[in-house]
């Protein structure tokens, strides 16, 4: 696509974790078994002073550390999330100020459940490809909510990644993208409500699997490729089970998706999921490597990408910001009481 691609990237995951075992203890659930079924051994927990804005800023700053472009050359910035701290007032303006890209740029927040980050990526590709802006930033980040006691509580976590899209010094070209969209109410959160609701098993076959498989197949068709053409594959990962099964359905082997599968240690980062998986892959990918990525957003839709690492990667300042391995290393584990306090689930005496 006109040589448009990723010029830099940065990621961030909060320092804290909780295990399904500790969550299960509170609700009389065998959390260990639950975690095993979901293939989640821990999930990230944002500190009380973290939200989608602070996570987006940290990821975007890590992205800026890895390149030496003038932030004033950024012409567009989009933050995709389903947990923007404000219902009205953009997350993106604060991110733009924090990386000193303001004021000469366009900014907007996007929402499409868990695929708002990749929707931002596509928007940036279009703007850069059309020559409307020199560089554009796409962020996917979330501090997702699971209602206390709900199945989602075992997986809903926090994290995000940012991508600088441009045409010069591109470390990975995004050669193709395909999206598949239908109206499918599998998961939603109404305006003004704290916690989302979901359709239980309806979120599986007719929602996640149908859309991810259709998105993947559509991209194969559009690009004339097949699974063995790719070194890496990353899928939306609400748990470990879904992406593992969908990879198999699409014909990918386990070792192709191992690097991008972060959900077992950090949980479901929603809009951050595929962006973070992609960041983990870019941390180790070599020039010439090809990456297959499919994000899924409830509601429902999928965004699929065909990405190829360029020779520029050899000269790229990967070490100038922490890698996913470093970001995820040495977390601090919380008990459920502290977790509830951090997530604001404790009713305060006064507000």
């Amino acid at each position, binding site marked *: 696509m006109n040589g448009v691609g990723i010029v830099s990237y940065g990621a961030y995951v909060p320092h804290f974790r909780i295990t399904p075992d500790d969550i299960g203890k509170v609700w009389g659930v065998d959390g260990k078994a639950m975690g095993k079924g979901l293939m989640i051994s821990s999930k990230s927990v944002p500190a009380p*002073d973290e939200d989608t804005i602070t996570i987006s800023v940290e990821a975007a700053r890590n992205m800026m550390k890895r390149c030496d472009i003038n932030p004033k050359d950024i012409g567009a910035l989009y933050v995709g999330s389903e947990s923007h701290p404000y219902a009205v007032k953009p997350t993106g303006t604060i991110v733009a100020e924090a990386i000193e890209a303001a004021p000469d740029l366009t900014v907007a927040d996007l929402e499409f459940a868990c695929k708002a980050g990749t929707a931002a990526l596509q928007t940036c590709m279009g703007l850069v490809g059309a020559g409307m802006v020199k560089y554009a930033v796409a962020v996917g980040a979330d501090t997702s909510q699971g209602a206390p006691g709900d199945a989602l509580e075992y997986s809903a976590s926090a994290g995000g990644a940012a991508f600088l899209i441009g045409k010069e010094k591109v470390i990975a070209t995004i050669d193709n993208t395909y999206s598949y969209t239908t109206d499918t109410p599998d998961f939603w959160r109404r305006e003004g409500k704290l916690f989302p609701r979901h359709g239980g098993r309806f979120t599986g076959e007719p929602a996640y699997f149908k859309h991810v498989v259709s998105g993947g197949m559509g991209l194969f068709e559009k690009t004339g490729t097949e699974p063995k053409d790719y070194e890496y594959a990353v899928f939306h990962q609400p748990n470990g089970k879904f992406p593992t099964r969908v990879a198999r359905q699409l014909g990918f082997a386990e070792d192709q998706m191992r690097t991008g599968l972060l959900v077992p240690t950090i949980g479901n980062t929603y809009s951050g999921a595929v962006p973070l998986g992609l960041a983990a892959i870019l941390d180790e990918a070599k020039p010439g490597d090809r990456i297959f990525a499919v994000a899924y957003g409830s509601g429902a839709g999928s965004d699929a990408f065909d990405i190829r690492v360029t020779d520029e990667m050899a000269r790229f300042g990967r070490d100038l910001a922490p890698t996913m391995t470093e970001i995820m290393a040495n977390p601090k584990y919380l008990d459920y009481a502290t977790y509830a306090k951090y997530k*604001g689930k*404790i009713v305060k005496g006064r507000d």
Partner: protein
Amino acid sequence: MATAPRFWRENPSRYNLVGFKCNNCGNHYFPPRIICPLCRRKSVGKIEPVRLKGTGTIFSFTEVHEGMDEQNMQRPYIVAMVELDEGARITGQVIDCDARDLSIGTEVRATLRKLSEEGSSGVIHYGYKFIPLCNGPAASENE
């Protein structure tokens, strides 16, 4: 409760540690001022806004157990006076660590976090806090 502009006008310093360098004495200060507190009139026209790097060392610190309403849910939390590499000193929270992992001289870097919010329907204020550079490896061995 304060109105939004009171906080908003300080955003460059709160988000990006914009302080200043006095080009008369060469010292860095935070936050910005109209004149250098040492050079006074000699500094007029020689005050240069500077974005401080945000790295430095802990000059002193405390773990606050009885805090303000804003930080109530974070209790206990750590507040430090940080000596930035440019020489300016600054006060802020140190986060994502335990007080027992800190000492005078611990290296820290600035990050952006929520400082406070004007109730559940008001403006959210963001600004700098500090994270130990060694956060993780050394810090979590005892945990």
